């Protein structure tokens, strides 16, 4: 009979809160709404969603200062990474719910189920970030995935949402199966599904008779995660799905899902890597980072469709985070892994010190937070500009829609400009600070070549981000362009996101200080 204490359940409180909120919303939809198709009686639902997210975020913030420990018999961990990601997820889902309120009302499609699915997805993300065992991890990944599949196809009247949802589901199932298969192989090699146990067995195993099992399993698991974070060449679904999904859902996917999947990926591979040849995860993630940074940015370049452009940009940003992940596995000087061109880790500082790892974690987490805030803001403006009438014409997200926005909606134009600058990594925005931290961490780890590729690609990226700004501020609006409606929820969400983008860019100090403290705590 295992014994549990309240301490064991602390990490899952935020997820539990999100789930309870979601259930409340479901029941409210079933029992409280009298008129089935009117938005008027559903005004409180977005508020419930935001309050739930805020509550969960507060609890997660509180958890972030707990000593890191393994709980629930090794099935989950309570550590600053998972807590931080839960905070990011809570912020993201809160803002996404606010954005949805206006978006759905405009389409007369506001339903409690939508918010409930968002909260369920958030719960899945939170749990994914703290899973320390493969079955738990897979189940949580599915919780989050199934919710997002449903959300993607939520506006089922059009052809795009249905197609996007179906593609996402098929390819998601495929990648899920790959991950599960990889996990099965790892179980076969080690006899346990817990990460801690696996690490122990792998570290102890001197002979490599089952090495092929381990390596195949690892590659498969990496593939599964690479699908979720949209790394090239497992990104193919991204543009279609991001474009087809309701825009607030796209924001949630691109910010929250990515953050949670990255933390799970790091958790798995940091646990398993010590038992493997050091250069294999390095080359694996280095190659993914290289491909993702280059291809993501290149494919975003010719896009005139801003939503697709942002989808590719999301791919590119996954590449920058992968650059940070690669830095974690950079081989120390003098070991195998040199002389590999761009991927080589040149011994700038000799042995990578342990404190450099803290800097890398800090950089990755800060980047995820910054990207989440920025992406919410940019998709938020996009959502606010959308009109249902255009959706069949396929010009909903054309660059021309942004022409003259600075005159008709200066507030939105400023928000979008801030987000574009942030995505392009231009100061004084959070994107700049994030890129700075990641590139510096990569250079400190000796990844000079990859860092240079990163800087070059982000310079090229400035072109397509600034093009939006140019359209907003320097082109005149077309004749008879419709003025989009405003909703106070949208404005609040955009204001919060823009404030975050700029404040975190100017004063990143408090957050980085907190992250330093948290990573030091975790690595102790």
């Amino acid at each position, binding site marked *: 009979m295992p014994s549990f204490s309240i301490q064991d359940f602390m990490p899952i409180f935020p997820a539990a809160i999100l789930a309870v909120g979601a259930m409340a919303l479901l029941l409210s939809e079933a029992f409280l709404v009298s008129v089935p198709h009117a938005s008027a009686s559903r005004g409180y639902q977005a508020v419930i969603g935001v309050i739930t997210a805020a509550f969960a975020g507060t609890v997660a913030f509180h958890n972030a200062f707990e000593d890191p420990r393994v709980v629930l018999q090794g099935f989950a961990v309570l550590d600053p990474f998972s807590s931080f990601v839960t905070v990011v997820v809570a912020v993201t889902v809160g803002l996404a719910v606010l954005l949805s309120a206006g978006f759905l009302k405009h389409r007369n499609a506001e339903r409690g189920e939508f918010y409930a699915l968002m909260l369920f997805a958030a719960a899945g993300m939170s749990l994914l970030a703290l899973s320390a065992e493969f079955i738990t991890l897979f189940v949580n990944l599915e919780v989050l995935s199934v919710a997002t599949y449903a959300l993607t196809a939520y506006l089922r009247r059009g052809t795009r949402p249905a197609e996007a949802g179906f*593609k996402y589901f098929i390819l998601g199932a495929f990648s899920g199966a790959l991950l599960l298969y990889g996990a099965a192989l790892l179980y076969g090699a080690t006899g346990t599904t817990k990460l801690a146990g696996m690490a122990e067995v792998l570290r102890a195993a001197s002979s*490599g008779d089952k090495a092929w099992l381990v390596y195949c399993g690892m590659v498969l698991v990496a593939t599964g995660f690479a699908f979720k974070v949209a790394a090239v060449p497992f990104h193919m679904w991204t543009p279609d799905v991001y474009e087809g999904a309701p825009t607030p859902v796209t924001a949630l996917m691109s910010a929250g899902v990515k953050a949670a999947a990255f933390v799970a990926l790091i958790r798995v591979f940091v646990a398993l890597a010590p038992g493997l040849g050091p250069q294999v995860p390095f080359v694996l993630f280095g*190659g993914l980072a290289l491909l993702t940074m280059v291809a993501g940015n290149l494919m975003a370049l*010719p896009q005139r469709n801003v939503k697709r452009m942002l989808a590719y940009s999301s791919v590119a940003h996954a590449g920058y985070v992968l650059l940070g992940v690669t830095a974690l596995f950079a081989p120390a000087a003098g070991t195998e892994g040199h002389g590999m061109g761009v991927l080589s880790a040149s011994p700038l500082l000799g042995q990578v010190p342990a404190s450099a790892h803290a800097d890398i974690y800090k950089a990755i987490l800060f980047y995820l937070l910054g990207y989440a805030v920025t992406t919410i803001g940019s998709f938020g403006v996009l959502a606010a500009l959308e009109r249902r009438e255009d959706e069949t014409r396929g010009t909903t997200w054309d660059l021309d829609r942004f022409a003259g926005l600075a005159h008709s909606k200066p507030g939105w134009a400023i928000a979008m400009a801030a987000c574009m600058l942030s995505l392009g990594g231009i100061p004084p925005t959070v994107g700049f600070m994030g890129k700075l931290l990641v590139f510096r961490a990569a250079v400190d780890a000796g990844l000079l070549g990859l860092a240079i590729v990163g800087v070059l690609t982000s310079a090229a990226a400035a072109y397509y981000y600034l093009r939006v700004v140019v359209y907003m501020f320097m082109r005149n609006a077309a004749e008879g362009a419709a003025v989009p409606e405003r909703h106070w929820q949208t404005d609040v969400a955009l204001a919060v996101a823009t404030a975050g983008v700029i404040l975190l860019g100017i004063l990143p100090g408090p957050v980085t200080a907190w992250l330093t403290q948290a990573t030091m705590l975790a690595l102790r």
Partner: protein
Amino acid sequence: MIDCSDFQSFGQYFSTHGFTDTVTCFVQNPPFNTANIGNSLWMIIALPILGAFFCGVFGKFMGRSNTHLIASASVFGSFLLSVMVFWAVNPSSTVAPNPFGSTLRYAVGADYGTWFQAGDFRVNFGLLADHLSASMLMVITGVGFLIHLYSTSYMSHDKAYWRYFAYLNLFVAMMLTLVLADSLVLLFVGWEGVGMCSYLLIGFWYDDPAKAFAGRKAFITNRIGDFGFLVACFLLVLTMGAFTLQAKNNNFPGDGTGSSQVFKAGLSAKGPLSFAAIDAFTRALPSKADSNQVTLSTVIDNGPLKGFAYGAMVTVILLCFLLGAAGKSAQFPLYVWLPDAMAGPTPVSALIHAATMVTAGIYLFCRLSYLVVLSPTAMAVIAVTGGITALLAALIAFAQDDIKKILAYSTVSQLGFMFMAIGAGAFWAAFLHVVTHAFFKACLFLGAGSVMHGNAEETNIKKLGGLSKEMPVTWATFLISTLAITGMVPLSGFFSKDAILHALHTTTLEGYEHILHWVWYVGLATAACTAFYMMRLYVLTFHGTRAPDAKVPHAHESDWQMTLPLVVLAMLAIAAVAHGIPVMENANREGPLQTVMENYLHPVFQNAMRSIEATGFVTVEHEEGLPWGAWGMAWAIALAGGGLSIVLYRFVFKRDGQWSGPAEFIRSLAQHKFYVDELYELLVIRPVKFVSFIFFKIVDSLLIDTVAVRGTAWVTAQTGAALRYLQSGDAQSYAAIMTLGLMCALFYALFKVL
């Protein structure tokens, strides 16, 4: 020495002591605590910057009068603060921090910490106000405020008033940065800033291509000068670096205020480009010949300048600074931009191109006086440059008919006078002329603006005439200022110009015994020319009959916003006399009586004077008593020039008179500005254009633009477009690509293991 210890209030002291003593004690007893005023210096700059921000960003929405209020009020606030600073630097107890050991009296300053640092080289962000800066502050903010006030009326019909006032405020801020800087780097920020504002304001009416072109010309000419400035700074850093390594302990005074440790500590605290560092460096150099220390003739034994003597480096540095100063202060051969700069609004000409910015070069040399006196060669070159400029500009001014052009050339000419004074080591005389010139030249320009305003923007003096009755205030103030610039006795211009001529006459540079004497002759000739063309301008504009082809039959007097500054400036042009009369006992306790300005600036230039004593490069012949003879001669010359002009243009030629014979030839030459612009075109612009054409076509257009820039962009865009074909929208092919990626990874992993 006057005893001020029992000074309580003005009236109480006046009853027992004389007027002079009372005034002296009054200015030496500021009624506030001077200890912390250094920390507030930044506010003087911040106010106009804030004004520029508000005018530039919100000016369009605030409306005209609010913009006027903010712009003028911010400069006036600056003026009030400047008055406090001016007052605060007078007591001898006021001491600015100086990490180089010696005490910096009569100055306030603040160091706001490191600005930037690269290796050993550091630059602090620091401000310093001594007597020199404080006087400049008063001129800049005082005249600046009057010109803001004037502009509120002058620009009352312009649509882009908010832009104008934003630029004007920004200019004031930059000029204040220039004079408050305590290092060459921050000074350079102001230096470039005023250049930029000048460019913006000359091309203010950028719709007119000629005006936009004038702005560009000013900017490019200034850039040539800035190049010299930067090279000078780099060389200075290298020379001081070499000195730091080479200096011996004997180089530093043994009274405890200096040692090589203190010098190095000072350098690491303030950086080599701060004025305190240059001061300490120059104090260490000119010691009497001693094998045990580094002197001007010592050869540098380390670093990139190895093999050159320190004295030679100082000369080169000063000549580079001269290039910079010649650009900013419109000296030969870089003066060509200033006459064209008159394309800007007239108040701008008064503020920037007469009263303040163009004196930046003189300010720079006054600030670096201790460096200047180390090189008689450089001083001779400076004096000769000033002489050539002064005479050339005066001759060109002879034949100009445009009221603003004449004033512009007259400015160039007067700036030449100031350079002559620098060359003679009479820094105080140069600065006195800066101050008096600021007053009367601003007044003349504003008067010209008033004339134009009242005559439908007519600038040709031959189409004016007889304005003395129609514009009485403009006329009276213009007359006073004209008399001042020509050097009539009771006015300020007489004393400042005479101080310069007197210095030229009595000073000898070692190795260049006769140069200053020749320059003196040039100065006398220029003074006569000045009187001539200024009286010509005055007579043709204000007297005689009204020209038949005038644009308006009757001129109208301007508003009070325009005439009030005129009156104030004319009064200042008279009152500045007080600076120029020798009444003070010599600060060195011996020698003849000093003028107020010389006495006042003594703390600023005392290190230069000490160096002169140590090196003996400059010798000044002191006369006993007041220089009645020199005064008489200067006065007679001015009177002769002016009188001849009045006779010729009032009674002989009238308006349409033509010269004949050789005079006609000279006149034609002068009218075409001695073909200097054409010479530039032939010697500089054509070749540069040719080379740049080659570079443009081959390097820029072909290699960089087409191959490098567009090439990369094209390749990138094409790759992106090609990658799009992979994105077919077909879920099966997506899965296939994923599988392919997976296979590659699996293959790699297995390859590693097996």
